[in-house]
């Protein structure tokens, strides 16, 4: 078979044979750097930095390292404004994952990332390899990956292609996560038309390590050997970084298929075990994962991190395909590879551990003094450039930002002014059965939630809770975003995302500690998108400062748009909180009959951007509910204090769908109904469906009502008794009632019903 460039292994996925045809007959006269996605200015900077014209191989290396995906060139000026320090932060942004100290000598390593672009093209593999990538980020800090969360956003399930994407992404996440033995414990599933062509697939991983045994990605010295461990290198994802993640998806998405990487979760599992064993045996100086930009990124970052250079010999890289060019080996995104930094005398022992797990550990590079990354193939030097210039000296842009005019009309249209619905019961059923609110069991049942045996609270609760083996401690974790709020006011949307994530963590009794994030936006070269981004970062920073939850890292996903239409600006926040004694954790379901129900926080007539407005009124408009950061903090402190004092039988955050949905979910989760008396008189719909921030619905343990009221008063949190648990009905006073069984059917059947529509055929 003739070696044909571009016919990656992905071609087998589609069965397409035309991939062996050269796609464009003769390259147009465009300069190579532009074809690779570098601007003329960027090219000039490379040339002046090197003092000569770069060779094509070198240019390819710059093109991936200076892409938006790897260099954060449009975002880093803004990200720098975020709070990153705090007493619990052990490792902040800039490394493969953030780390907080959770006490008892345990560190929690966590990170979130987007795999939206690959998933839009091939949902199953795109989502699967996203899981693999984030797991390796956590592993590279020396932690055992312990939990996954998947915040997902798709277009309406009425559309066949959206069902195909949703089904494929869920199956892909399951196929990978289930096979590597990391439980999927949470996440969210949201739907909006703006995601039809651009699904948002974020994935978060957290892991644990002894706080004094973390690996640093800045490690090693002159002479240290870089062992490439794991899969052989093929043509997977060539151009994936620059082509897939830094350009807007257009109609010809199928053309991009050969760039999609294929995951091998079995290999990843072996990689996890081998790397952790290497670490436990003290054989590692450092560990880097190979993600976007492959070997180029891992080697240049590793070298630059310790202000060294490296000699990289491509002949030592195990290849899966014949006829690979040097640049292809350098930028391949083949999955399931790690780069171990080891002392020369430990190479043999390290290779033995690799062999035990059936892996190769190839010494592909060595650190050298001087800062130059020299790449050889067949003895010839094919690239020679400063490692720093690739890893740390990429361009940085302050792109123009401008608030879009169209926001004015939307903001002015307050849905709270619309007339009350003709039937409150119908409105309630519509909101409860909305795909954004309804139960996500259909997805979560496809994920192993239990492996590793530490899942105290799995998917479907406010926050997932994972126990830390050998201690009484647990980590609560939540991943939240709100696209509608961000669309209507990106600053407020980000504040809400942080507030809700913190509230979710607080609701189970934990103290919010730190966040990671994934910032999902459209094309940053459009001023309106850049404005949304800037505002969102500002909001996230303000909220994180108010809650004392620093940002330990994150990921920016731009170019989520097609034909000039972007997704909602959606910062997704991954919040980690600490529960000092897991036996005090509070669950969201009403556990028993006859308990008092209290609403914590003030309910105001705020329906802007609400689920009610979208589902019942058919509009996404108004202003998002106001967030008083001080009031929000007080609520978090009250919830944590109530858990410590053991006064709560249940607690549930109040957000999408308002109090009505919060009450219904507590009833459904606990299997116990309620009777509440709605406030608001003729405008009861405002009380039921308002999405005012800083609220929760709680049931104190029998006899602890006064204790709760006193704690609330001491914390300055409004606390009002609204009803009582019990019975088989969700009873809203004299207004309406629904049987618990009917509510369960509405809540649980929405997504399965939509997904059982005619099978997608794409």
């Amino acid at each position, binding site marked *: 078979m003739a070696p044909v460039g571009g016919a990656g292994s992905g071609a087998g996925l589609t069965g397409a044979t035309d991939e062996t045809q050269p796609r464009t007959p003769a390259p147009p006269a465009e300069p190579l750097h532009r074809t690779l996605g570098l601007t003329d200015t960027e090219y000039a900077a490379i040339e002046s930095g090197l003092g000569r014209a770069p060779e094509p191989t070198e240019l390819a290396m710059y093109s991936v390292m200076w892409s938006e995906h790897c260099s954060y060139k449009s975002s880093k000026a803004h990200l720098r404004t975020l709070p990153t320090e705090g007493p619990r932060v052990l490792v902040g942004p800039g490394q493969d994952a953030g780390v907080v100290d959770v006490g008892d000598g345990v560190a929690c390593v966590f990170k979130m990332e987007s795999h939206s672009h690959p998933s839009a093209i091939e949902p199953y593999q795109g989502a699967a390899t996203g899981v693999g990538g984030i797991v390796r980020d956590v592993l590279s800090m020396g932690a055992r990956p312990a939990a996954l969360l998947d915040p997902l956003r798709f277009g309406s399930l009425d559309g066949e292609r959206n069902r195909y994407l949703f089904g494929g992404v869920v199956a892909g996440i399951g196929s990978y996560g289930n096979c590597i033995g990391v439980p999927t414990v949470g996440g969210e599933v949201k739907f909006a038309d703006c995601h039809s062509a651009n699904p948002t697939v974020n994935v978060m991983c957290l892991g644990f390590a002894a706080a004094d045994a973390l690996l640093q990605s800045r490690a090693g010295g002159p002479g240290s050997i870089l062992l490439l461990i794991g899969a052989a290198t093929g043509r997977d994802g060539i151009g994936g970084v620059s082509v897939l993640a830094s350009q807007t998806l257009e109609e010809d998405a199928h053309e991009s298929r050969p760039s999609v990487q294929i995951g091998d979760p079995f*290999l990843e599992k072996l990689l996890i075990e081998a790397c952790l064993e290497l670490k436990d045996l003290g054989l590692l100086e450092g560990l880097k994962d190979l993600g976007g930009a492959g070997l180029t990124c891992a080697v240049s970052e590793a070298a630059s991190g310790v202000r060294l250079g490296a000699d990289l010999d491509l002949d030592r890289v*195990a*290849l899966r395909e*014949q006829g690979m060019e040097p640049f292809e080996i350098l930028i391949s995104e083949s999955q399931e590879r790690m780069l171990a930094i080891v002392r020369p005398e430990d190479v043999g022992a390290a290779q033995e551990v690799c062999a035990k797990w*059936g*892996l190769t550990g190839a010494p592909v590079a060595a650190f050298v003094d001087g800062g130059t990354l020299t790449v050889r193939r067949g003895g010839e030097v094919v690239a020679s450039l400063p490692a720093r210039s690739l890893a740390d000296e990429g361009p940085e842009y302050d792109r123009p930002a401008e608030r879009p005019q169209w926001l004015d009309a939307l903001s002015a249209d307050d849905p709270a002014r619309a007339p009350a619905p003709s039937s409150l019961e119908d409105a309630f059923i519509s909101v409860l059965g909305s795909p954004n609110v309804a139960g996500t069991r259909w997805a979560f049942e496809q994920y192993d939630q239990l492996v590793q045996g530490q899942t105290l609270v799995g998917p479907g609760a406010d926050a997932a809770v994972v126990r830390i083996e050998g201690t009484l401690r647990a980590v609560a974790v939540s991943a939240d975003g709100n696209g509608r709020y961000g669309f209507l006011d990106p600053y407020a949307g980000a504040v809400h995302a942080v507030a809700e994530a913190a509230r979710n963590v607080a609701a189970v009794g934990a103290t919010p500690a730190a966040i990671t994030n994934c910032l999902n936006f459209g094309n940053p070269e459009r001023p309106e998108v850049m404005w949304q981004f800037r505002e969102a970062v500002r909001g996230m920073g303000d909220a994180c400062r108010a809650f004392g939850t620093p940002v330990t890292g994150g990921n920016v996903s731009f170019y989520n748009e097609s034909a000039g239409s972007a997704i909602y600006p959606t910062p997704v926040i991954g919040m980690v909180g600490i529960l000092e004694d897991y036996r005090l954790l509070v669950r969201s379901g009403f556990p028993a009959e006859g308990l008092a129900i209290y609403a914590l926080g003030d309910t105001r007539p705020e329906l802007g951007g609400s689920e009610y407005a979208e589902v019942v009124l058919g509009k996404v408009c108004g202003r998002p509910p106001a967030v008083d950061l001080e009031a929000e903090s007080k609520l978090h402190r009250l919830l944590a204090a109530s858990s410590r004092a053991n006064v709560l039988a249940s607690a549930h955050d109040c957000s999408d769908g308002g109090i009505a949905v919060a009450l219904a979910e507590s009833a459904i989760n606990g299997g116990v109904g309620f009777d509440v008396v709605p406030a608001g008189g003729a405008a009861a719909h405002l009380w039921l469906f308002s999405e005012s921030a800083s609220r929760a619905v709680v049931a104190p343990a029998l006899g602890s009502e006064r204790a709760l009221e006193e704690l609330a008063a001491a914390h300055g949190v409004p606390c009002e008794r609204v009803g009582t648990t019990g019975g088989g009905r969700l009873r809203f006073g004299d207004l309406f009632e629904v049987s618990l069984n009917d509510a369960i059917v509405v809540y649980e059947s929405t997504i399965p019903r939509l997904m059982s529509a*005619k099978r997608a*055929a794409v």
Partner: protein
Amino acid sequence: MSYRVVVGVRLKEGLLDPQGKAVEAALPSLGWTNVSGVRVGKEIELELDAPDEAAARAQVVEMSERFLSNPVIETFEILRVSEIMALSQSNQKAT
């Protein structure tokens, strides 16, 4: 001599094949209403050295009985045998 052999493995007749059913159920929605009896199986392609084709086939049958298929649930069939140049070097995998 070297041979490339393709073995087809599929679920035994009568065993519920949910993948086949799913494919069959999807076809009418795409306009093909005249299809039935869809079964989904797998193909295993391998290369081996053997003195002659009969020996190659015999070995593949034995491998299929013992390992490549599970006689409790599956049947197998040698779909294609072709003589090839010496065993190719294309499978020089390092893992």
